[in-house]
């Protein structure tokens, strides 16, 4: 195993297992003394009241005895939660000890034995709900207009079970959404109903209205001439007058009707004729006729697919037919085989509607509405084993894990069939399914979501780099959409053509549109380019490559009207390399404010160069430990302005200086040379991509026990030339994906909480 970590760590810690002995010495010699000095006051192992006993460890080997505890020590150091209060711990030591522990735990990851982890019960997130409804009913239902948006957590994705809460509002919205969806999917035959009125008695009838629309209401008169006034009252609203409509044709016995057209809403309605005149009301019948609205052919087809009959068709044994429909629907909605006991409760709802005389379609709608609100549909149910151990997940559970991972939707027939045959745990079958699923266009939702949430580019044009009126000459909503698509399409190509994941750092191509060519100011270099939709294009020069230098990433790592080498550097360390730096310590004195000379009033003008302001970080040792890591990488990207466009000079005309040097000695000038340095750190990068995709796939926070899986996956990936599909396949074949942990699982996170440093701190 070769493990090149961050270069500065490499200086301190030998990086191969061959020198594990030296590592052990390192702990006794330079790590424990630091901890002893700073932590003994509260965590003295000799004190019986102290229950947090990491200081019992004397050699590196002892760290393995309590990995969870040590993971916590590193995290607390990194998060600055410990040591509490005033502390003499230097920033260099804080960083060094945290990295040492992380590194040590990683090198010995597999010593703890097999680990599968337990996934919290997950509800469908908004995207999954929408896709599942699409596949179940053929309806594209825009959930963002009705469901509150989902929180993210764990590895930073919206698939994370721990943050998929069920807020009180949600049940109400599920009910509402189910009604709207079924109203679109199932056509209720037009209502035409005549009620006999009994003059002299109550002139009110009760009628169930199924569809919100216009109704023609006709009251038939019992005499050719009526002296009084007739009007109509729905529920308790004010009466509306009925209009006398003479009979068609001529002849004796033809009587007038009194009509009105009203919009009525769904529900049981009380409709009353009001007669103001002498004697009993001269009326005989009241007819309601729904305004015809012939359904479109595709809607009819959809209805037929679901119900196996045309709207209003005469069904011989409706209850039996309904049972059949429910059986088929439930299997897909529950994503597992269903028993009679699963169907029975929904049939009681069918009966409820049947008893009050609803049409067949409405009876089914009521039953199906309950299905769409039931926990078996809304949650990805998995059976738990209470006894400790690792258990393979069930066939159908695995089918769901797979389809929600790669498609964000329910398993299709092929997956369900394989599950029914009990073949899904077969590695060969699984591998073949992964390929099939990645070839399916449905896998685009994975690329889009994963890249957008991992990099944070999904918020571009909204919360990040918002659309500002002052920019609308070159930065418009379509441009922002193209910018968001760029890194996604690069990843999609890598995935669909099974290319090397290192291309995320090095791809010399991107996906451009006419709009992006203009945005990137490449009209001269790409003269023959014409495309309204993103088109695979070779960059005309080596200024940009891979995802880091895309306009989206460069904008999301900038301040308003100002690039931030600090944020860019921190972003690379966090997002790309998975080696985040701690947050700034509290009460850091602000950097010297910009000295305002004559040009200060000019918008966006920095009176002294950005580089000089930031170099002030290096003076204070509290700042320099981390800024020496972050800032140089950011300097190398200074040629990209705050919107992501190329620039040769700063606002004030100072030529951009793209040079940087890491404490470990690597020197570089500009993005092209930085790229080489990052490619040298490909082991960090590989581990990071692996953890991210694994976290997305598992839908939980990664834990210490996952370190072994991550390292194994990363090694396999490296051996197979970093091919993207190898990683996806190996994740699907991995223990945590295919099994779950029984008994109580202690939760400790595998790595420091995932950073999504969009605008972490402000350079003052």
């Amino acid at each position: 195993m070769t493990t090149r970590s961050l270069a500065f760590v490499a200086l301190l810690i030998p990086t191969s297992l061959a020198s594990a002995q030296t590592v052990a010495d390192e702990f006794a010699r330079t790590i424990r003394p630091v901890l002893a000095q700073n932590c003994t006051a509260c965590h003295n192992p000799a004190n019986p009241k102290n229950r947090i006993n990491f200081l019992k460890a004397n050699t590196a080997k002892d760290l393995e005895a309590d990995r969870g505890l040590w993971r916590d020590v590193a995290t607390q150091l990194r998060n600055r939660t410990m040591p509490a209060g005033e502390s003499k711990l230097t920033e260099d030591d804080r960083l060094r000890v945290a990295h040492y522990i992380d590194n040590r735990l990683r090198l010995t990851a597999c010593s703890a034995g097999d680990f599968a982890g337990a996934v919290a019960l997950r509800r469908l997130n908004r995207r999954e709900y929408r896709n599942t409804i699409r596949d179940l009913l053929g309806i594209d239902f825009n959930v963002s207009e009705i469901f509150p948006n989902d929180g993210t957590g764990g590895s930073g994705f919206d698939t994370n079970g721990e943050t998929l809460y069920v807020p009180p509002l949600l049940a109400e919205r599920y009910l509402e959404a189910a009604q709207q969806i079924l109203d679109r999917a199932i056509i209720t035959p037009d209502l035409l109903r005549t009620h006999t009125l009994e003059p002299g008695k109550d002139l009110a009838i009760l009628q169930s209205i199924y569809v919100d629309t216009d109704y023609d209401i006709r009251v038939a008169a019992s005499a050719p001439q009526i002296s009084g006034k007739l009007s109509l009252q729905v529920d308790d609203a004010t009466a509306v007058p009925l209009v006398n409509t003479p009979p068609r044709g001529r002849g004796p016995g033809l009587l007038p009707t009194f009509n009105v057209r009203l919009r009525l809403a769904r529900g049981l309605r009380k409709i009353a004729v009001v007669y103001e005149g002498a004697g009993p009301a001269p009326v005989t019948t009241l007819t309601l006729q729904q305004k015809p609205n012939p359904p479109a052919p595709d809607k009819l087809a959809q209805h037929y697919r679901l119900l196996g009959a045309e709207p209003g068709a005469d069904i011989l044994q409706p209850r039996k037919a309904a049972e059949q429909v429910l059986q088929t629907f439930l299997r897909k909605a529950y994503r597992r085989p269903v028993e009679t006991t699963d169907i029975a409760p929904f049939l009681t709802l069918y009966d409820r509607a049947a008893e009050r005389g609803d049409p067949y379609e409405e009876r089914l709608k009521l039953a199906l509405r309950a299905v769409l609100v039931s926990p078996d549909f809304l949650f990805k149910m998995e059976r738990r084993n209470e006894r400790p151990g690792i258990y393979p997940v069930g066939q159908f559970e695995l089918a769901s894990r797979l389809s929600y991972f790669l498609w964000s939707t329910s398993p299709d027939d092929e997956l369900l069939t394989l599950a029914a045959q009990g073949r899904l745990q077969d590695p060969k079958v699984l591998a073949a399914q992964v390929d099939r699923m990645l070839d399916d266009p449905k896998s685009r939702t994975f690329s889009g979501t994963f890249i957008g949430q991992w990099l944070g580019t999904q918020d571009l044009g909204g919360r990040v780099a918002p659309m500002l009126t002052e920019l609308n000459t070159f930065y418009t909503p379509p441009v922002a959409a193209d910018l968001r698509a760029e890194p996604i399409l690069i990843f999609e190509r890598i995935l669909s053509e099974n290319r090397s994941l290192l291309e995320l750092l090095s791809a010399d191509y991107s996906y451009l549109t006419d709009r992006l060519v203009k945005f990137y100011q490449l009209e001269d270099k790409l003269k023959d380019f014409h495309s309204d939709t993103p088109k695979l294009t070779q960059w005309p020069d080596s200024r940009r490559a891979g995802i880091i230098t895309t306009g989206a990433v460069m904008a999301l790592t900038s301040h308003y009207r100002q690039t931030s080498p600090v944020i860019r550097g921190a972003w690379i360390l966090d997002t790309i390399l998975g080696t985040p730096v701690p947050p700034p310590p509290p009460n850091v004195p602000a950097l010297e404010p910009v000295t305002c000379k004559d040009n200060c009033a000019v918008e966006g003008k920095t009176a002294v160069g950005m580089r000089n302001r930031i170099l002030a970080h290096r003076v204070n040792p509290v700042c320099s430990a981390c800024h020496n890591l972050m800032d140089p990488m950011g300097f190398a990207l200074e040629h990209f302005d705050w919107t992501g466009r190329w620039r040769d000079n700063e606002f004030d005309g100072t030529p951009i200086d793209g040079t940087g040097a890491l404490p470990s000695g690597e020197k570089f000038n500009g993005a092209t040379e930085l790229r080489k340095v990052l490619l040298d750190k490909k082991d960090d990068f590989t581990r990071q991509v692996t953890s991210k995709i694994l976290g997305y796939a598992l839908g939980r926070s990664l834990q210490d026990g996952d370190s072994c899986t991550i390292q194994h996956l990363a090694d396999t990936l490296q051996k197979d030339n970093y091919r993207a599909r190898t990683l996806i396949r190996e994740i699907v074949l991995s223990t945590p994906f295919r099994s779950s942990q029984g008994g109580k699982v202690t939760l400790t996170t595998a790595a420091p909480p995932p950073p999504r440093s969009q605008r972490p701190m402000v350079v003052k």
Partner: protein
Amino acid sequence: MPAKRISRRTILRGTGAALALPWLESMMPESMAAAPAPASQLAAPPLRSVFLYMPNGVVPEFWTPAGDAEQFELTPHLKPLHDLRNDFSLLENLWNAKTVGRNGHWPKVPAWLSGGYVERTSGDDLDAGGTSVDQLLAQKLGDRTALPSLELGVEATRTGIDTAGGGFARMYGSFISWRDPHTPVAKEIIPQLAFDRLFRSNKSPVISGLNPDDPRLLTSLQRDETSILDLVRDQAKALRKQGSTGDRVRLDEYFESVRSVEQRLEASLKPQKRWINQGKFPLERPGPGIPQTRPDHLRLMMDIMVLALWSDTTRIGTIMTADAQTNDDHTFIPGMRGGMHSVSHHAEEPVRKKQYEMCVTWYVEQVAYFLKRLKSLDEGGTTLLDNAMVMFGCGIKCGNLHLEHDLPIALAGGGKGTIKQGRRLRYPKETPLCNLYLSMLQRMGVEEKSFGDSNGILSNLG
């Protein structure tokens, strides 16, 4: 459809077209049916409580007046409240002791209305340290109105973890309302959904002249949701028995969510004593989506809150005028560049500080708008503002330095004659903000010995 007015009665009765407002309006004539039976009507307007959260602190010297007299000159931030001079008071030296340090924004948000200690977490174990005061009110009094409480805002829940900011889940910054320490209450940001919520909750299944227990009603379409909820609740119960501890937490949330809809359906069947305001409320049903500009969006949400209070659909509300650390485009303020959070860290640079000051003042203007709306509505000789307590302010004093002392807090509204407004009330340094909440709870009729870290009430409000 041209702009229409919705009659108060329309809202109250719901009639046949509770969700189908556009055509309902066209059906509804100017004069509605007779008033409901006196038995279901309150004799006097009820007291309401509203909490308006403002983001990113203030410029301290532009908020707090000089000197220490009870009477004070309006400071630059408070100028927009000029016409409301005698309708609000500044409450000084209040703070939330448990929010000190750790991070400038995140822990100060859930704690704003709870005074709790907010745990640092990446999201798997959110802990706001307490139930927020609005939710406690809703739990105690919510069954008296169609909606126990209403939570509105303008920004979608934040995502991700702020590692650089100390490892807090950013979603903390999006919630001031907490049903319990672990459950944030989702706020509604889409005007149409918020608006429809008022009506849906009023959708009465009772048809005039029929007994609520009439079988024709029990089996009606209107009662279908109750049957569905019964069914899925039983399923959740059964699943809960099989599930592990972790699963149970989620199923309990689901169960609670289902229960809250049921409670509302049940409540809609019970005759509730309500306050009836006569007349019409000038607000049409908003279109779908989110209004294009932030000012339009916020004002619309405020209008909806006013409507909810006026129609007595709820008596308890919160509005987040923006989420904590908002950095959304604020260029709708003339002279402003970029987002508010950026300029809040102005480092005493004059141009940026000026822009920050303008942002804060803009938020106070919006508060003033809300208060004026309440003041303009008559409730039998008093105004809606007279019958309300509207607390507004931030969880940090200074946006630049995240100061926790002497929070910018003000209280508007007469509290039904229990609050003497137009003053500046200076309390001893480090007086718990929760003392204010305890005072508000008492006025609302909720008898609690303490709330959060309170050590008494604010004695001289009246």
